[in-house]
């Protein structure tokens, strides 16, 4: 069965994303790490779908949804990053601590 290999790949990609999310300082790279995590989930969905073969193709439909949401998220995220960059001339996450007590 090929499922295990897919799950391992997805877990690897997800862990990579978490690592990037927590460790990277560049906002753009943080966003990319989030995309990695989303796509790891997509791989999981497709893999399980190919095994379970539900009549409505739930896994595939969900992965389409996730891709859509991810696109929207990246669009908004990059727009915010762009605005902050214009104001601050920096893309360092550590400097974006404006929203605090």
């Amino acid at each position, binding site marked *: 069965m090929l499922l295990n290999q897919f799950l391992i790949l997805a877990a690897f990609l997800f862990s990579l994303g978490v690592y990037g*999310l*927590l460790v990277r300082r560049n906002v753009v790279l*943080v966003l990319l790490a989030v995309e990695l995590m989303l796509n790891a989930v997509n791989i999981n969905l497709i893999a399980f779908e190919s095994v379970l073969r539900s009549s409505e193709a739930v896994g595939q439909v969900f992965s389409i949804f996730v891709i859509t949401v991810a696109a929207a998220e990246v669009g908004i995220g990059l727009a915010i990053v762009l605005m902050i960059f214009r104001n601050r001339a920096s893309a360092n*996450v550590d400097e*974006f*601590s*404006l*929203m*605090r*007590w």
Partner: protein
Amino acid sequence: MSLLFSVAPDEIHFTDGGLLAQNAGVLLVLPFLAFLLIIFFGRRMKYLGAEFAIGAMALGWVYAVALLVLNITRGVAREVHFEIGRIGALGGEPLVFELGWVVDGLSTMMFVVVTTISLLVFIYAVGYMRGDVRVTWFFAALSLFAGSMLVLVGAPNLVQLIIGWEGVGLASYLLIGHYWEKKENSSAAMKAFYVNKVADIGLILGAVILGITVGTFRITEVLAAAEAGLAALGPVAVAAGLLVFFGAMGKSAQFPLHVWLPDAMAGPTPVSALMHAATMVTAGVYLVARMFPFYETLAADARGWILWIGAATLFITGLIALVQDDIKRVLAYSTVSQLGYMVAALGAGGYAAGLFHLWTHAFFKALLFLGAGSVIHAVHSNNMSDMGGLRQHMPVTYRTFVVGSLALAGIPPLAGFFSKDEILASFNHAGATTVLWLGVAAAFVTAFYTFRMVFLTFHGNYLGHGHPHESPRVMTGPLVALAVGAVAAGWVNIPGIYTGFHHWVEVREVFRPEAAPASFDLLALIPGVVAGVLGIVLAYLVFNPERPLQAQRDRLEIPLLYPLLRRKYFLDDLYWHGIVAPIKGPLARGVDWINTYVIDGIVNGAAGLSLALSRFVYRGLDQAGIDGLIGGISAAADATGSSLRRMQSGRVQQYATGFVVGALVLVLGIVVFR
């Protein structure tokens, strides 16, 4: 003597009086309505509220006369009751308090007297009080006075009777003290109130004894119980009878409680007229008459007291009138003396005789008072030493005054003759020969002082200042009307010819048949008339001669008697030094001491206690307790908040770390513990 008397029929036939008697309460309420209207709207009216008082009294008079006519033609005995409350269960039966009205011969006669005299006095007062202070209030109090008296005489039970009784006392206090700016006037008002109040205690105690013993306050039922000889009533009957009579002594100014009435002359003259003729002093006589069957049966032993108190009053107080200079005081003592006649007649068993004198006396005494008021109005003085020779200046007043005086002296065929004769006859019939001769002697004294007053006031030379003038028609009108009454009021009861008055006042639920004279009692008649004529003649001889000074004309000073009479038997001094002063001094000091140390102590203690309590509440409960609690809660919230807010660093990756760690813990938890 029994040949001269025929006993009235045992059965008295009466009806319930129909709608007229059913609604007689209107009569009792009208003056109070007038009182309220005067209080609220009187000042805006043209005659300052007098029109309300007169209007109400005129309506009442029409109603009373209608009742009288109904009573004469048919005979009415009707009681209407409204329950207002009840207390306890004394012997199984609760004691019921009621208001209502009674329409029978006695109350109808009183309604007519009260409304007639009140109406004429009210009209007279419009002229007399013109330009006076507090005219509106005066008429309001007059209405209250007449209304209270109507409540009293219309009372079917002892409770309402006491309510009216006290209302009369209150209104008289207000009116006697009308010119309260002068100390002696307000003192006179207080004296009247106190003396009456002392007597009222007797009435209230008597009423309570009767009410509790019989189980009801309804006078008819009390009388019926006395008639039936109720066993429980027997032992207390005489005591209750004497107590009730003690109350009557105060209101009807019987010796030795008469001292307030002459001082009550401090009020305006219309008040004196009203008080002496209709609304106040007759209340005691009315009360004894109302309770008459009771005094005839179980409380018969009290009647001796009534007879002798009346006899003492009629003789003793008549003498004082001989030496008075104040014209109103002469009349006041005369009233006391005449009330003595009425009370003595009731004591002697002459029920109709006493009431008949009340009826005629109301007319001629009101006439004399209003005439005296007319004189006072003209010369601005109460003293006869400032008068004299007013005959030419005030013809109407003079003529009517002489008519009233003749009636008072008991000269036939005027009103006073018939009633005084009937009273003397009732003494004779009762076998009270001593009282009969006392009465004859007093009749002589009455005629003497009455015509002393007439001669000193209207004959001789004018000794006052200014120019006297006849009073306006609004004042002389009532004088003429009352003069007609003083002449004709006696004709309703002429022995042997027409004895209608007997039948009017005998129509009652409970009544003891009474001897009615079939013809004149000559043994009483002749001495009475002779005494009256002699008194007038003697007064003419002593006081009429033209002398330059009143003081010279007024010299009739019998050595021992004169100072005694001048000081009114030292009764006032006795009361003052014997009762008022001992009570006033130590009592006042005692009350002051109690006030300073006990009551003030209690008040200050209570204040200090509440101060300490409120201080404790403020500091202990409010500040420390409630404020501390609320402050503590907010402080705790503040501390937690300020320590927790540090978690919100604004660093996204810190949040993400926490999120991931949290998710891992969750997943681990699920894997390990499921």
